[in-house]
């Protein structure tokens, strides 16, 4: 069973990237430059991450630095999962 987040993230991204004729995606390839985030829509990716990994992603966290590459997404996710669950999240 693939528990490595990178594998799951890559799988989700590739399902949507295939429509753009992209067959390979490295950990550090830009999702924006290849147009993947464009057709994917950043919100679908965010929904997928929230549902699959049980995190809540705030609007202010949806920035280039956290979503540029698969490595970035994994790093961001690890950060989120490391946060104490006791913290209350203020809703907008």
């Amino acid at each position: 069973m693939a528990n490595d987040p990178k594998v799951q993230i890559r799988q989700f991204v590739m399902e949507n990237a295939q429509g753009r004729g992209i067959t390979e995606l490295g950990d550090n390839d830009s999702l924006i430059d290849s147009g993947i985030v464009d057709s994917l829509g950043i919100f679908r990716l965010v929904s997928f991450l929230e549902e699959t990994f049980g995190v809540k992603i705030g609007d202010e966290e949806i920035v280039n630095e956290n979503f540029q590459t698969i490595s970035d997404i994994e790093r961001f996710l690890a950060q989120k999962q490391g946060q104490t669950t006791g913290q209350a999240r203020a809703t907008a």
Partner: protein
Amino acid sequence: MAYILQQFLTNSAKQNPDKPAVWARGRTLTYRELNERSNQVANLLRSRGVEKGDRVGIYFSKAVESLCAMFGVLKAGGVYVPLDPLAPVERISYIISNCEMKGLITSGEKLRGLDAGKIPSVKLFLITEDKANGLDRPEVASWSEVDSFPKDSSPELQTTTTDLAYILYTSGSTGRPKGVMLTHQNALTFVEWCAEEFQVTSEDHLSNHAPLHFDLSVFDVYNAIKAGATVHMVPEEVAKFPASLAKFIEEQGITIWYSVPSALVFLLLHGNMKAEKLAKMRVLLFAGEVFPMKYLKQLADFLPNVALYNLYGPTETNVCTYYLVDRERLKTQEKLPIGRACANTEVFAVNDQDQIVRAQGETGELYVRGPAVTPGYWADTEKTHKMCVPNRFQPHFEEKMYKTGDLVMFDEYGDYLFLGRRDSQIKSRGYRIELGEIESALLSHPGVREAAALAIPDEEIGARIRAVVAPHEPGSLTVVDLQKHCAARIPSYMIPEMIELRDALPKTSTGKIDRVSLTNAAVAPAA
């Protein structure tokens, strides 16, 4: 007074040579630098065989070089063709062949992605990097060569205002992109109206959010340059992230913003914008699709001191009508007007009896005449004759008018209201249905973020209605909720039979909801 677009640059460079003209990804060019660079590019293009009227593509992510390329091609007497850097290569190759492109200004990376064998018309590739790594072919020139060309003058030309300046390829509803030809005069008609209406000055900071192949960018670039102002190009990676985009607007001190409504809604809902940080903003323009009223009202409240304009017009005419939002009227308006004709343009609505309508409540198809109207589509005389028709209402001399295919109505103030595409008024069970009305009904539900209504052709009843909806919170809405909501607002024959819930709706390369791809997916579901 300028009669060709590059004169805006040469004039402003004389007046304010050291003012910043363009900002992109942390780099700036002053008017002098942009003027000199574009002279050099023009001289290089000429030396490499680009002649008057030749098409030259611009194919790379936004950078200060984008403007060097645009003005360079114009100064060489060429016609530039902006290509979407995010489009599939097959589409790019098609466009290059379709207009028999002679030159292509691109990046090394993009060039490697192209199959040169498929685009034999291109005799010159100018890449935006200083070195052509692994691309040492005689037809490839690198940017470092640009510097070896004269910078104080550009080629002697006999360009007039009726010559083509650029070609914008738009998605044809029948699959293949169509090249809309635009002359200097077409662009100038629009730019001059904008300059007057928005009073753009050298103190302004214009954003450029739209891709360069989308005609909103004509305002961003040429109105900034004409006024001696600065245009700030929004990088593609910033545009995709709402918080980054909001930060961009604040940090760059944008005073005039122009985009599709979807981008503004995106910012409004997710950008965490603080009104006090946007104090410099004075004019907000939007075009390209209908602005959902609930979001427009929020925007108008959020930025009470900003002038909001709804601009309307197909690529074939750029903007032909405009409407300044009246905040008092807005409180009770259900539909935002597209307003009235811009200066130096005439529009009129023609009804089914082929008469021009002039009274309140009357509807007709909108026609446009005047110097804003395109001479037609590149290498497609059939489509040109279909859309650019002789003006039968003016028989004294030959003149064309553009048939928009849009239905409009006069309201009680003498403003036009957009009713919908002629072909989005469909028949189902014998009833005439406006897809836009169904979308409005869906959008009026507070849990709905985006909605699209589609007509799926059906042999029995004409068309079946389907909708695709993206809620604010995934899982918060059911199809039954939505159908009940619609039942309270629209007749039963208009309620969508099927509603698909998704996290987000697909967008076209110009940022609008991609109804064509949604319809195609619904008509032919994946096997």
